[in-house]
């Protein structure tokens, strides 16, 4: 085996420059394929990043004014969800739902103060289950819990930017401190970071407390559901049934798309994923085309090489080389050139991706938008493996015709003295 490899190398060394030139086209093909695939992955990662803070099969439900008259009611009627809507949804969709949270969104920004610090932030009343629908990273303390809800506690959790804004003394621990929202003191029980938007200034408090203090009565401005659907179709079905139920309860015309809105993340996620699957396939097609061009190049050069080496091959045959050993010689050279060159292209491509990825990650620390568009472009192990398989196959294909030609060389003609 070592012997056989040495035999190949000794002939390859003979044509070093040519081998390099030939290999370049293959290396280039693989390099491009890796770069393209990596970029596609980067775009995809950016997209997934956008969905990162939401449960991937969530339904976000909101209400507006009706657009059309229906059931004896005038158009322009404001639809308001109540806690009862939530209860009914929870009961009717027990089998389809993982989590449900009613939401009470305070319109506009509310003044929040701590000692002498002051700011206007977004405030929302939620239920503990909301944690599983709108994902956040807890930094300190805890999330809103059942007791907060049941006992109408004045607990509040704040995002890191809010904490930085209010607690100017970085040493100061926010947990257990009281901040005032519209003059009402709330105790900070936790701090968090929204992974999607690290600059988001947001406060969450118990739904019940919010309703009571801000005159919400039993109103819900929005509802959020995470379903146990695994397919788009399933999630779509749940969405439709939820819509039907709410439309009936609130006497909305079935074709009134404005009155009750539902944002189906799974559907949108899958749609985006579909686009990226398309991109990925497109990239493979282009990459493989490039590699085919490389194969043709290698094949061409190998044919010339075999022609030039007619005499040598004739000698080998005269002294006892079987046609198979000649085929093996040519094929091995071809595979070796393509595999080696391809490997270099692979490493160069992966290296470039890793470099870009590292730079992007640094930029992302300061500017989140980068992360959202293009993030961690990389070709994973499977891609590398596929590329390798393609390479070896490419080498075999490239070497096939020249090898056949070489095996067909007749020693008497090859050795004929001119």
């Amino acid at each position, binding site marked *: 085996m070592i012997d056989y490899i040495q035999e190949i190398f000794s002939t390859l060394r003979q044509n070093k420059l040519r081998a390099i030139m030939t290999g370049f086209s293959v290396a280039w093909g693989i390099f491009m394929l890796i770069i393209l695939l990596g970029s596609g992955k980067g775009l995809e990662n950016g997209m997934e990043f956008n969905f990162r803070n939401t449960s991937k099969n969530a339904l976000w439900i909101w209400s507006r004014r009706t657009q059309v008259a229906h059931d004896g009611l005038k158009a322009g009627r404001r639809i308001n969800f109540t806690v009862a809507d939530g209860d009914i949804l929870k009961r009717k969709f027990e089998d389809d739902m993982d989590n449900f949270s009613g939401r009470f969104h305070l319109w506009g920004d509310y003044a929040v103060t701590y000692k002498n610090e002051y700011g206007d932030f977004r405030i929302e009343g939620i239920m503990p289950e909301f944690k599983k629908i709108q994902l956040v990273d807890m930094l300190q303390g805890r999330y809103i819990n059942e007791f907060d809800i049941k006992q109408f506690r004045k607990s509040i959790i704040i995002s890191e930017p809010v904490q930085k804004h209010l607690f100017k003394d970085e040493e100061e621990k926010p947990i257990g401190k009281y901040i005032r929202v519209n003059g009402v003191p709330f105790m900070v029980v936790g701090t968090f970071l929204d992974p999607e938007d690290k600059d988001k200034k947001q406060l969450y408090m118990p739904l019940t407390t919010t309703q009571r203090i801000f005159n919400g009565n039993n109103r819900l401005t929005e509802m959020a559901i995470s379903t146990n659907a695994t397919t788009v179709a399933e999630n779509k079905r749940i969405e439709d049934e939820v819509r039907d139920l709410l439309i009936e309860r609130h006497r909305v015309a079935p074709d009134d798309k404005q009155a009750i809105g539902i944002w189906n993340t799974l559907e949108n996620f899958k749609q985006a994923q579909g686009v990226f699957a398309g991109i990925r396939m497109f990239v493979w097609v282009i990459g493989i085309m490039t590699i085919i061009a490389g194969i043709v190049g290698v094949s061409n050069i190998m044919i010339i090489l075999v022609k030039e080496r007619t005499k040598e091959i004739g000698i080998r045959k005269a*002294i006892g080389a079987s*046609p198979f050993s000649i085929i093996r010689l040519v094929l091995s050279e071809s595979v070796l050139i393509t595999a080696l060159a391809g490997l270099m292209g692979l490493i160069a491509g992966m290296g470039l991706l890793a470099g870009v990825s590292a730079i992007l990650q640094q930029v992302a620390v300061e500017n989140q938008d980068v992360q959202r568009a293009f993030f961690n472009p990389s070709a994973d192990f499977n891609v590398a493996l596929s590329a390798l398989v393609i390479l070896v196959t490419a080498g075999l294909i490239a070497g096939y015709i020249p090898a056949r030609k070489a095996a067909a060389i007749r020693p008497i003609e090859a050795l004929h003295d001119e």
Partner: protein
Amino acid sequence: MQSFYPLETITIKEKVIMSQSIIRVNQLHKSYVTGSNSLHVLKGLDIDIKEGEMVSIMGSSGSGKSTLLNILGILDNYDQGEYYLNDILIQKMSERKAAAFRNKYIGFIFQSFNLISFKNAMENVALPLYYKGVSRKKRNAKALELLDRLGLKDWWNHLPSELSGGQKQRIAIARSLISEPKVILADEPTGALDTQTSYEVLEILKEVNSTGITVIIVTHENDIANMTQRIIRLKDGIIESNHTNVPLADKSSHAIYVNP
């Protein structure tokens, strides 16, 4: 026991006298077909060469000497007749089989040496053993030993381009010998060499022959042919004459019997 001893001597003698044919050709015909033309080159040859003989083949240019040698070396097919190599009928066969036969029975020496330009002397000599599946270490050792015997020990790592014609031909001879063939086929082995070197090469071939290997040389030169035991002359595709070289036969025939 005593009666056994003379008997054994007799069997050896018999073997010598009736020495076996290594190459036997009956009514061999060969035509080259190019397009619509057919050129009848060999027109019914009968040749019988015994094991251990040293034979030269002569004839004018185009008389079919190389054609014959190619057929004997299983590099080419014949159209009609029979060819037995070591009593095996050589017919149209697969390339793989032909290669195996060549590797086992035949060593080639060419006018233009036909060494592989990017391999050094030792590697060139060792190459036939690579195709026999002999390990690198073993075949290189054997190649060096052969080079030593041919006085080229110090040149083992030189490329063919760094060697003289005589040296190259000696390397080619070493290469033809390494797989221990039964027959050496040499197509004008001295054709590219000066007289002095030609004689040296022929001396080596005679020495090779003296170890029992059959040597068949195609040559244009009478003095070279006269150094062999038998001369076969071809003319227009038939054998013109086939006679034993009396003066030289004595000396070299002796050598065969000494070392079968």
